[in-house]
């Protein structure tokens, strides 16, 4: 294939990666930014979303779009409820102590993974996309669904951005993030905000999972790699910066795609990872973080 089309394909692929990554990282960033909790179980909420998407979509017969849409609504709600429960039961009791929450979320990771293995099984199971339309370009074919994932993610990101910057809920969340004590002095129930943020973060991961699951499959170990990438995105973007998270997700997704054009796959991964690490070495506060925190 010629260089131009190859690059186009790599860029498209990169954008799909970015789209899903941005949603998931946004969830992580909220939890990390507002609660200062390093949520190691975030990837498991992602996995749970995918597994539920499979369960819901197979339970609903008829056109695949029906099952998919049901999953898109229900899976995040259920995952949010699970997260809420975990937050009330465990994280709050730990006073959100950073070190203790790492252990606790590792514990959650084990629990969710094991439950998925026991009740869902070790197989990778596919979810039928709501529509399958193959876009025929002069050089190659491309999945229409993948393009719609980019669009859906953009839409959801815009919605999240709107909620965070233009609504009372967003105002309350940001106030809690910047100064939780002062927020309390203005009647903000920080405790409940934390619970909500944790649930919302998990829901964003679940939405990302529902979107991606018709492309890849639901599998009980699928949470780990996206978790690591999300952490990278959050930090590269700069903690608490919505814009940074988005830019970093695009940067990482695209660089992953485009570098693969020039090198053999594993070497490309090495170079892409090293490059992103170097960004952080020379800009420790991330792309859009402020110098001192």
């Amino acid at each position, binding site marked *: 294939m010629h260089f131009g089309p190859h690059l186009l394909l790599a860029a498209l692929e990169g954008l799909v990666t970015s789209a899903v990554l941005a949603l998931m990282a946004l969830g992580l960033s909220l939890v990390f930014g507002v609660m200062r909790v390093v949520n190691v179980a975030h990837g498991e909420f992602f996995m749970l979303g995918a597994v539920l998407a499979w369960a819901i979509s197979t339970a609903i017969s008829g056109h695949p779009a029906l099952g998919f849409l049901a999953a898109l609504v229900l899976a995040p709600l259920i995952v949010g409820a699970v997260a809420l429960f975990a937050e009330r039961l465990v994280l709050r009791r730990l006073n959100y102590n950073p070190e203790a929450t790492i252990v606790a979320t590792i514990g959650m990771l084990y629990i969710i993974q094991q439950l998925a293995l026991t009740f869902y099984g070790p197989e990778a199971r596919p979810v039928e996309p709501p529509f399958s339309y193959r876009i025929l370009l002069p050089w190659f074919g491309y999945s229409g669904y993948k393009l719609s994932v980019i669009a859906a993610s953009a839409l959801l990101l815009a919605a999240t951005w709107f909620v965070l910057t233009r609504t*009372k809920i967003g*105002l*309350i969340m*940001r*106030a809690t993030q*910047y*100064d939780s*004590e*002062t*927020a*309390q*002095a*203005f*009647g*903000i*129930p*920080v*405790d409940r905000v934390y619970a909500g943020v944790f649930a919302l973060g998990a829901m964003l991961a679940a939405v990302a999972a529902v979107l991606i699951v018709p492309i890849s499959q639901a599998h009980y170990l699928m949470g780990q790699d996206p978790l690591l990438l999300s952490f990278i995105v959050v930090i590269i973007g700069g903690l*608490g910066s919505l814009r940074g998270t988005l830019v970093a997700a695009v940067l990482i997704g695209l660089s992953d795609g485009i570098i693969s054009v020039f090198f053999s796959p594993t070497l490309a991964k090495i170079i892409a990872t090293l490059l992103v690490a170097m960004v952080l070495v020379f800009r420790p506060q991330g792309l859009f973080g402020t110098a001192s925190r």
Partner: protein
Amino acid sequence: MTETRALTISGLDCFYGDVQVLYGLDLALNKGEVLCLFGRNGAGKTTTLKAIMGLIPSSAGSIRLDGEELTGLPAHEVPKAGVAYVPQGRRLFAEMTVAENIEIGLMTRNKGKATRENVLDLFPLLRQRLRQRSGTLSGGEQQMLAMARALCLEPQVLLLDEPTEGLMPSMIAKIRETVAKLRVSGVSTILVEQRVDAVLSVADRVSFIENGRNRETVDVEQLRADPSAVRRYVGVG
């Protein structure tokens, strides 16, 4: 007596971890007065304010707002009861705009446009800066915003922690002016200060805090006549 009291603290004990900071502190704020807490760093002034706000749990004693007990309330219910707080160092939500900071104040007790207009009338300067990120305001403007944000609660009781700290004289004058205006409008204020001149020009009464106790409360006229208490408790003169 009670009906003249805006806020009554009695026998308050507070701890930071294992360290006791307040030892049976008693304090009474009359309606419509400016009560100044005076004392050295570490005496317990800021702790007192935080304890009123419920930000530090009190292990003994009571804090009553117009008859309502505050100590049992979760921290976020205290402002809803009508106590507004301007913390030391202003503690604005620096990444947010001026308008958003004010919005948070308004949300606390579901106040609307009218309150907002009143508050902005009090600080007309802020009106031109509504869309500016509050962290980029000058020190004086930040202090105004911090007070504006608190006044959006239309509080019965206002707590001001060192509002003139780090400000230039003209700004200090402006802040004092505002405190005086608020007194006229009936807000009861507790003011933590370290500057004697600030105290004497705006306060009605002064409580001297030392080692977590209220040593003495005196009328400001009395203090003007005999400033020895100031010397005794703070060592300035």
